[in-house]
């Protein structure tokens, strides 16, 4: 894990530096790091939560037995041609946190005096509002796929300029998964995600996001570090998921739309949808 020290002495010394700068409502740009532009994931390959490990079971998520079985069932369904737990995304339901910080599609950071915004090109990722105005958790906020995020800017090296954004996100809506293989969150929606986002000290065009998830589907907090690269040539697209989506959901079943516009099965031997309401009309 980057920037972690095993030395207690160093940790204590660093802790003394991890002091938030006095909050000011006016936005003093000179105090903030340059995270401008467009960021994409560094690592390629199949979309997976922990890029350092293989897709699917290879992610080795520390799931409880119950949720490991749920993940296995998702993988088995996908092997059969189904969507598994990915079916929500196939229906263009937002990815939510932490998946929306994956960076398969570009993200942008926008700093204001009270909020850091994370804007995603994929329109099924709602904008993240990370409140850095010192507020406490609201009591009556309805769950969101993005969750409710409170952040704190840290001047880690004491040079008068913030370099780390620490975020805690709660109140995330379920069902949610970590990645395409369907690694599940607990259905109780009690998950908490803590992030530390900072620029690479050697390469200011690399941004790191150390994400630690605590969730009742996990046997322990799960920490994964995501890396993003700043694009030299910024190209914003409008990716709305619905356009060109050939997944059709009817009730609990998933179907596909053939290129010539016919409904078709996703699995061998899948039954067609029940058309009883049409029969009634035709009588």
């Amino acid at each position, binding site marked *: 894990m980057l920037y972690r020290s095993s030395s207690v002495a160093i940790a204590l010394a660093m802790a003394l530096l991890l002091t938030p700068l006095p909050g000011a409502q*006016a*936005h003093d*740009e000179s105090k903030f790091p*340059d995270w*401008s*532009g467009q960021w994409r994931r560094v690592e390629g390959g199949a979309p997976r939560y922990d890029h350092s490990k293989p897709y699917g079971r290879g992610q080795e998520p520390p799931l409880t037995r119950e949720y490991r079985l749920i993940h296995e069932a998702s993988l088995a369904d996908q092997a059969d*041609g189904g969507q598994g737990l*990915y079916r929500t*995304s*196939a229906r*263009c*339901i937002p990815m939510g946190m932490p998946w929306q910080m994956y960076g*398969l599609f570009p993200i942008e950071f*926008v700093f204001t*005096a009270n909020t850091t*915004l994370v*804007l995603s090109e994929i*329109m*099924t990722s*709602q*904008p993240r*509002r990370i409140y850095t105005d010192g507020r406490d958790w609201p009591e009556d*906020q309805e769950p*969101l796929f*993005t969750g409710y995020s409170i952040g704190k800017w840290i001047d880690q090296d004491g040079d008068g300029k913030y370099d780390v954004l620490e975020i805690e996100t709660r109140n995330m809506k379920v069902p949610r998964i970590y990645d*395409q293989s369907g690694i599940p969150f607990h259905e109780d929606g009690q998950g908490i995600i803590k992030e530390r986002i900072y620029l690479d000290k050697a390469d200011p065009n690399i941004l790191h996001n150390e994400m630690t998830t605590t969730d009742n589907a996990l046997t322990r907090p799960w920490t994964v570090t995501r890396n993003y690269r700043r694009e*030299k*040539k*910024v*190209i*914003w*697209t*409008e*990716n*709305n*998921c*619905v*356009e*060109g*989506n*050939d*997944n059709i959901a*009817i*009730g*609990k079943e998933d179907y*596909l*739309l053939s290129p010539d*516009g*016919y*409904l*078709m*099965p*996703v*699995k061998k031997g*899948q039954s*067609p*949808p029940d*058309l009883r*309401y049409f029969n009634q*009309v035709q009588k």
Partner: protein
Amino acid sequence: MLLKFPIVLTASAAVAVVALTCAQAHDESKYPDWGGQWRRPAGINNQWDPTKPWGQEGAPLIPEYQAIYEANLKDQLEGGQGTDPTYTCIPDGMPRAMNVIFPMEIVILPETTYIMIEYFSMLRRIYTDGRDFPVDDGTLASFIGYSIGKWVDTDGDGRYDELLVETRFMKNPRSFDASGIPLHEDAETIVKERIYQNKDKPDVLYDEVTTIDHALTRPWTVTKNYNRERNPRWFELVCAENNEYIKIGEETYMRSPDGRLKPSKKGQKPPDLSLFDTRNDAAKK
């Protein structure tokens, strides 16, 4: 069958190429305070001209498009969707996005003004860095369009008070509102806006929107107004989450509450299921 990646299917994705420029220092004192959450006034529905009733807005359509609009209204009366394309959960696009059916936030930075609208996660980037419109290489079109803005200090007090915006490169299908007022299929729409606050009531924002389109006999100007909520609560409006409409081929069907397919119009034929092997089902029965 391998996993489907709808988020990757961007064949028609709009592309805007932006040169990365050095950040300008942001002198907030020069810009108006448009912070908070902006909402359409109570009683205004999804209609383009808020001063007129829904479906009776007197759009200056050329005869061909007036006929399209009339046919659309008739189809909607029969249970169809007419020329309102958003029932499939595609974004409203411009200019309809500025109906602000669900709340809007405006974030002003020196090079870009961001307009975020809760519905469909619509995000407008209005570039105010002095750039010109790029040459369209065929990949620029998006529902929301490509917007260039200019801040204006109309009263010479040293502080900007108006944002002038021009938007081009919008793609179809779009309509002005839920009644289905159509835009021309050539997608050569240009939208010009003048966004400003009420001088006496800073919690009221106006957007004077002029649309130039080949479906119109003349530029059509409508002024929208929005009210500010200073202590906003943001929510997520996810169109796909509870969308009861399904488009299969050229037909639109509905999902019944019990999860079955049902017709959207009286007498509608069911979808063709010839790609299913129904022999197994017959055997099961």
